[in-house]
């Protein structure tokens, strides 16, 4: 299966997962599908049968509300049984709205209180450096999340500590819960900010294109001798790949999903109901 087909399959899983719950964070889950697929299919040194393998690569999804996307990919990699997906946010579930390392195998950090996961990722990168185990630490932040001051505290730390094992991504879909990022509190110029914080910066024009993402990660890895962390800015689309979610625009952060919407979406994604 090629990466694009895999993305379609993951989108179907996300829709079914959120659909089973009746509502959820669909917009910011769909925007990072390509990134997650490229990371898990092509780059991450992991072992789903041994989720705690000490020298594994880590992924800290600091925008913890993208849990449903993470769960779809982890399930696909075999971290847990597919039957779990229909339990999202149901009583006693191992798949809560926001990522929880103590509940879900394969989740490397508990996130959801925005900004904190990014700092934790820097702590993990620092720890990997101290252990000298060669792991690469990946983390994903949201654009709205980048309004948190803690993001920039962590950015300073990463540069100071030469965290060249850190490859971070901004899911720059230009939307946050209440509206457009530019209307609420603009981040522009975002690439210049990260450059000014002494990070390598790679702009990905289409952050929902697997090849472009892959090339950016390969390039980031090649920059390791610069002894700097790398920020890959992914220009993405919130709600990408499912018509009703994309069309909802700024209202797709968390949406009610009706059975009709699931049906329409699954057909659109070429899947079986």
């Amino acid at each position, binding site marked *: 299966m090629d990466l694009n087909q895999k993305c379609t399959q993951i989108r179907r899983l996300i829709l079914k997962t959120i659909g089973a719950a009746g509502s959820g964070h669909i917009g910011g889950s769909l925007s990072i599908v390509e990134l997650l697929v490229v990371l898990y299919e092509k780059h991450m040194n992991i072992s789903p049968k041994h989720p705690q393998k*000490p020298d594994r690569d880590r992924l*800290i999804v600091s925008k913890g509300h993208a849990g449903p996307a993470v769960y779809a990919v982890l399930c696909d990699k075999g971290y847990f049984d597919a039957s779990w997906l229909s339990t999202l946010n149901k009583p006693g579930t191992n798949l809560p709205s926001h990522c929880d*390392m*103590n509940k879900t195998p394969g989740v*490397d*950090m*508990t996130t*959801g*209180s925005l*900004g*904190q*996961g*990014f*700092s*934790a*990722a*820097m*702590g*993990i*990168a*620092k*720890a*990997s450096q*101290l*252990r000298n185990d060669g792991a690469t630490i990946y983390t994903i932040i949201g654009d709205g999340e980048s309004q948190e*001051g*803690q993001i920039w*505290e*962590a950015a*300073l*730390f990463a540069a*100071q*500590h030469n965290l060249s094992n850190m490859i971070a991504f901004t899911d720059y879909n230009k939307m946050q819960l209440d509206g457009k990022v530019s209307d609420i509190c603009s981040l522009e110029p975002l690439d210049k900010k990260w450059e000014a914080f002494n990070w390598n910066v790679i702009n990905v024009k289409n952050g929902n294109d697997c090849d472009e993402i892959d090339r950016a990660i390969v390039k980031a890895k090649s920059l390791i001798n610069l002894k700097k962390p790398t920020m890959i800015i992914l220009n993405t689309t919130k709600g990408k790949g499912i018509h009703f979610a994309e069309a909802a625009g700024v209202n797709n952060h968390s949406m009610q999903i009706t059975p009709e919407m699931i049906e329409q979406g699954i057909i659109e994604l070429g899947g079986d109901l």
Partner: protein
Amino acid sequence: MEMRKVLAETMEELMLKNKDIVLINADLAKPNGLGNLKDKFPDRAFNIGIAEQNMASIAAGMSSYGFIPFISTFTPFASRRICDQIAISCAYAKQNVKIIATDPGISAENNGGTHMSFEDIGVLRSIPGVVIFEPVDKVQLKKILPQIAEYKGVVYIRTFRKELPDVFSEDEEFDLFSSAKLQDGKDASIFCTGIMVQETLLANKILQSQGINADIINIHTIKPIDKSAIVSSAKKTGAVVTAENHNLIGGLRSAVCEVLAEQFPVYVGSIGIDDKFGQVGKMPFLKEFYKLRAEDIVNKVHEVLTKSGK
């Protein structure tokens, strides 16, 4: 000896023994006495700058990798400022992070209201799983720190950093989760913590001269609190006083009353900050202003004895 000197010596011993311990400061390494450890442990002791939120979450990340981070700053910045990071990155995520918080309550002295935390215990006590320890003197700090390093979970160490008179002898042993008995008595129970233990012992001399024998118990660990010691003492005396360098809301008084309300309801009189903010001043002035002196404890014991009909 200064508490920070003992803190630094003990941390050095612990870091020599356990290579997983890391020490993170937030531009208060010098006042906390921990500045020199970065020379001894250049990899494992570092200064994060003035970024306490980042410090707490970075510590959580390092903990997830198997390290045992000790983070250090003043009490207000180690509690109310980073409440959410302690709650989520550390406690909710079940990480093994230790928080060294200095200058509790009035000991912030001339740093004044902004730095004078009377609410830190209350803020943190309501977060599940956070252990709160407040040492009385250097012996207690030195004996309990290794237990804290061994214990897996979030621990808040609320410690004075300057010179303190010794209360305990060098050969005294402590358990992190058990209170320490200072005197057996039958007339009134005094539960005290931190610097209020010294005031209680001064008060005790006056009380003894008045023929009052107090049961004096040091609650060095406010959460989880030693329930059985509190209940058995209250049952014996029927009259309870608490003494703390903290707001009367949320701290030791609240913790003791929660236990007694459930298991042995009894009148409780309390010494502590009566829901006020801090201010600049030296300790003697602040003790007088907030009524934290030995004589205030004596008066409170008499009030409690009267109200209890003793």
